């Protein structure tokens, strides 16, 4: 009996260690930052090819809004945006690959929704891009509100939430429409371009990309109305709050930088600023970077290498890109949009 008890004690001790390891390492991974640092790069799951968001060129250089966010995280950690390694992922495998730790972060035009957080044990730390369903139509129709679309023939991809939202919107506003359904996005565009329907509906970011495929892009416009919510956000695993904080505050630092007027071009000047808000952002006051497990100048690294939120937006999807998507909802809260970051203090 004594020996059994002795065995049980030892057994328990060993088991506690094994279980502890299992908790911290196998199942409840809390060491993403440590492993990322040891590896020397951030593994980032991205879309295989989505203009403006993540797109590789012939030489394998990636560009895009989602891609730049990964570079921002890499910059915060390594002071080097090239320390982001891109792992192209399908829509169907993206969450599994994140759960299986094949990537440290998913930055792949993924909509933040409740089931994805609570069923997949993932977190969407903050909204990087407010997307939602909109309408494209010929400029010549001289319509500037979706409420004027009553009686329209609408091109839409079949069996999607897009089609459901469309039905809801028209019903709510007591309007009628004729649905022209197509299986593939390309067919939707072709049908619209050949004049088979009055308007085409899809997520706004998609509409701007689809417009480029039309024979005369400039003859078509996208309405300002957004009729659904598709908040796109980076994704991380649950149970690693330290890593979530890094991802969350990287995005917030970029938004705060734009709000404070700190850009990649004036970052050296910003380091000499005497404004407390700027000083806290660039680390000349406080220990905000250290508290994240990074360095004092974490935000400076982000802004220097990648730019503030507005710079990243303009370069990839906004004024300086081919897509030319107006800032709209993604403008700062004090300049017409809803982008808002809690303060660094």
């Amino acid at each position, binding site marked *: 009996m004594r020996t059994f008890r002795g065995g049980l004690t030892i057994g328990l001790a060993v088991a506690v260690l094994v279980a502890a390891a299992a908790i911290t390492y196998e199942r409840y991974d809390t060491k993403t930052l440590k492993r990322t640092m040891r590896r020397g790069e951030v593994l980032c799951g991205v879309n295989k090819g989505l203009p403006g968001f993540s797109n590789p060129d012939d030489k394998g250089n990636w560009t895009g809004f989602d891609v730049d966010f990964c570079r921002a995280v890499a910059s915060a950690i390594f002071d080097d945006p090239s320390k982001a390694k891109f792992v192209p992922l399908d829509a169907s495998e993206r969450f599994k690959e994140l759960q299986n730790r094949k990537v440290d972060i998913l930055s792949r035009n993924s909509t933040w929704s409740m089931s994805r957080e609570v069923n997949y044990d993932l977190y969407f730390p903050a909204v990087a891009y407010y997307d939602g369903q909109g309408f494209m139509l010929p400029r010549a129709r001289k319509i500037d509100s979706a409420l004027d679309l009553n009686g329209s023939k609408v091109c839409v991809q079949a069996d999607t939430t897009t089609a459901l939202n469309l039905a809801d919107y028209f019903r709510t506003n007591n309007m009628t429409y004729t649905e022209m359904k197509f299986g593939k996005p390309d067919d939707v565009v072709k049908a619209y371009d050949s004049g088979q329907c009055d308007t085409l509906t899809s997520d706004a970011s998609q509409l701007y990309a689809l417009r480029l495929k039309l024979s005369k892009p400039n003859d078509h416009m996208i309405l*300002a109305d957004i009729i659904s919510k598709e908040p796109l956000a980076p994704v991380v695993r649950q149970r690693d709050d330290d890593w979530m904080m890094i991802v969350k505050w990287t995005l917030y630092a970029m938004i705060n930088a734009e709000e404070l*007027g700190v850009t990649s071009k004036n970052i050296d000047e910003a380091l000499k*600023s005497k*404004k407390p808000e*700027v000083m806290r952002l660039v680390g000349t006051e406080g220990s905000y970077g250290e508290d994240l497990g990074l360095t004092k100048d974490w935000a400076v690294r982000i802004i220097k290498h990648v730019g503030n939120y507005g710079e990243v937006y303009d370069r990839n999807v906004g004024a300086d890109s081919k897509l030319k998507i*107006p800032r*709209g909802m993604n403008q700062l809260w004090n*300049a*017409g949009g809803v982008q808002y970051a809690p303060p660094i203090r």
Partner: protein
Amino acid sequence: MTNFRQMIWMLIAAFGLALSSVQGHAQSRPDADEPGLIADDGYQLDPEWQKQVVYYRSNEAPGTIIVATAERHLYLVQGNGRALRYGIGVGREGFQWQGLVTITRKAEWPDWVPPPEMIARQPYLPRFMAGGPGNPLGARAMYLGTTVYRIHGTNRPDTIGTAVSSGCFRLVNNDVADLYNRVPVGTKVIIRQKPEL
């Protein structure tokens, strides 16, 4: 007909130039103000600078103009989270302040009397130029408060989206005429600059 008109404007411009100081010619000439040039009506603006309705939240009343200088956009608030957005060209060094002004006067095909501050910077400019298609103020002007600045048209649509003017806000002639018809004297104009460090 157009040739004749063009010639008249060229003559006026030449007259203006003759009046300007000799020293001015030695300076590099900013590409913004080209008195006498006739705007190309067929000029196609980049989509970013075309007039369009956009999502825009604001606590300002509908009808208020908000000029976002860093963005190169002028918003006419419509309410319901929308605004009419125009592309603009903005001041290179002028109009560095931000704040509130009102439209105090409106004029069609305004005459141009470059203010002394502008003459001091660009001495080659004419002292006076009558309104018309070759006038850098373009088709319409809306005067801002008691300042020397205004929202106006242009004979250089290619400068929309850039920072080259002397502090005024310029729109293409079609757009400025459209805006002109939408806003009365007394309209609130809020000018926003990029924050200072």
